[in-house]
């Protein structure tokens, strides 16, 4: 049996269990409603979920732009300048060790309970891995490539656009993959904690009134977002980085997460 087949079988089995376990009464519906009742609940309130999804997607998109844009920019700066790197990287890595969630309630005070606080929180959440990966990517660029470009008379900006960025793409993408996943988690978790809109809000709201089918309908939407994001990154990887096929590092970047630059998803 091919690996992909087995993997699909596992997924199908999990889905079947999701339907069967609650139906058979092996797990109370409060904790896990059957898949069908979850889907039905989602369908019945499709309008509400659609609206919440729009809010969440908006927040995810903006946070993604901040986290990824900022992460790439700062990572590029820190990665290419040795002084700030020595100074900042260990501090960033330490900061990273702090479970940030505890601070979220204080966070809302500064930025309000609207989208801003979610965006800020998720941006910071996704920013660190992207930045760390980019810095690592820039740092490991073969100096030979930069030398070659210089010998052909490339200016600083030409070197940036034509050498540094393309050379860093594989590492940056693997950073984005993690950073993006964390942005989604960050938005949803902060919506769950304090908010009045979005998927996370719906999950929380339905949870406190014990309406588990609606809770899991929200969870399903989060899963769908994660899957879609993953597919998008894969697509970009294929488009942007054909050249890395053939190198071991290249193959790894396609399916792998660099362990550096991860943060606990809550």
């Amino acid at each position, binding site marked *: 049996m091919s690996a992909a087949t087995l993997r699909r079988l596992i997924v199908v089995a999990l889905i079947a269990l999701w339907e069967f376990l609650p139906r058979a009464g092996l797990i109370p519906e409060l904790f896990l409603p059957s898949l069908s009742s979850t889907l039905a609940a989602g369908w019945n309130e499709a309008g509400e979920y659609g609206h919440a999804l729009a809010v969440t997607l908006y927040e995810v998109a903006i946070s993604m732009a901040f986290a990824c844009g900022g992460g790439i920019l700062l990572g590029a700066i820190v990665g290419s300048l040795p002084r700030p790197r020595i100074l900042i990287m*260990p501090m960033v890595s330490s900061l990273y060790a702090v479970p940030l969630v505890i*601070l979220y309630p204080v966070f809302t005070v500064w930025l309000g309970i609207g989208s801003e606080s979610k965006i800020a929180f998720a941006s910071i959440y996704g920013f660190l891995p992207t930045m760390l990966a980019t810095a690592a990517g820039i740092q490991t660029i073969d100096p030979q490539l930069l030398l070659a470009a210089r010998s052909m008379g490339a200016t600083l900006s030409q070197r940036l656009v034509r050498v540094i960025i393309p050379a860093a793409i594989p590492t940056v993408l693997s950073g984005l993959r993690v950073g993006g996943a964390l942005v989604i988690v960050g938005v949803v978790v902060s919506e769950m904690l304090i908010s009045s809109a979005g998927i996370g809000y719906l999950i929380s709201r339905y949870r406190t009134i014990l309406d588990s089918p609606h809770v899991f309908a929200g969870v399903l939407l989060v899963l769908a977002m994660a899957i879609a994001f*993953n597919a998008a990154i894969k697509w970009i990887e294929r488009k942007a980085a054909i050249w890395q096929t053939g190198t071991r590092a290249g193959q*790894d970047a396609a399916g792998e997460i*660099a*362990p550096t630059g991860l943060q606990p998803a809550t």
Partner: protein
Amino acid sequence: MQSGFAVKATRVAIVVALFAIWEILSRTGIVNPRLLPSASDTLATLGDLLQRASVRKDLVVTASEVATAFALAVPVGALIGFLIAENRYFADVAKPLLFFAFSIPKSIFLPMFILVFGVGFSQKVGFGFFSTIFIVIMSTTTAVESVKVEHLTVARSYGATPVQTAFRVYLPSMLPVLLEALRISMIFNLTGVILAEMYASRDGIGHQIATWGENFQMKQLLAGVVMIAAIAIAFNELVRWVETRCSHWRT
């Protein structure tokens, strides 16, 4: 060495500056001190908290949960990670699923852990384990893949047994990556346990922090956050220190 000292001094200066800004913001009322008690007040509260027997007991509880979850997650995760790294088929099956599991907010599953373990030590350890294992698996895989084929061939050519290969080639080769993995796993582990404590618990420092938060006891809350941050950073630095010691042979 001198520049090393300069760097350390600058880092300390940055941290001191941050605390100073915090102090000023709060003291001058630029930020409502009810919402952000001053740094000095927070540190004083921290000192006060550390005097309390109950807080110390909470710290011990959390520490034992963290240690247990870690001691369970690391070997189990390492074993699975090893299988994935060494077996192409297993890797093809498991990797996408693992990545997916990684990108789900784990807190959704907190009630499940109460369902299975009740409330107490095992539930918190269970959730800590669950939050840690994925990252252990993924980083072990990377660590195993960092072992050079040449080194394995050398060991084989000198008739090394599997156990000898494991301890004399795999382990030292993987050590730098593995330490890095341990460091990150510990971050996940700590977050997991604290989250479980915040959600439902009788004791533990996470439980205390959540309570302080719920009751708007800002000084205690911030002191707790500073305490957790200090512990996390201390652990982080410790492992990084071991890392540089252990990989002195790396150029």
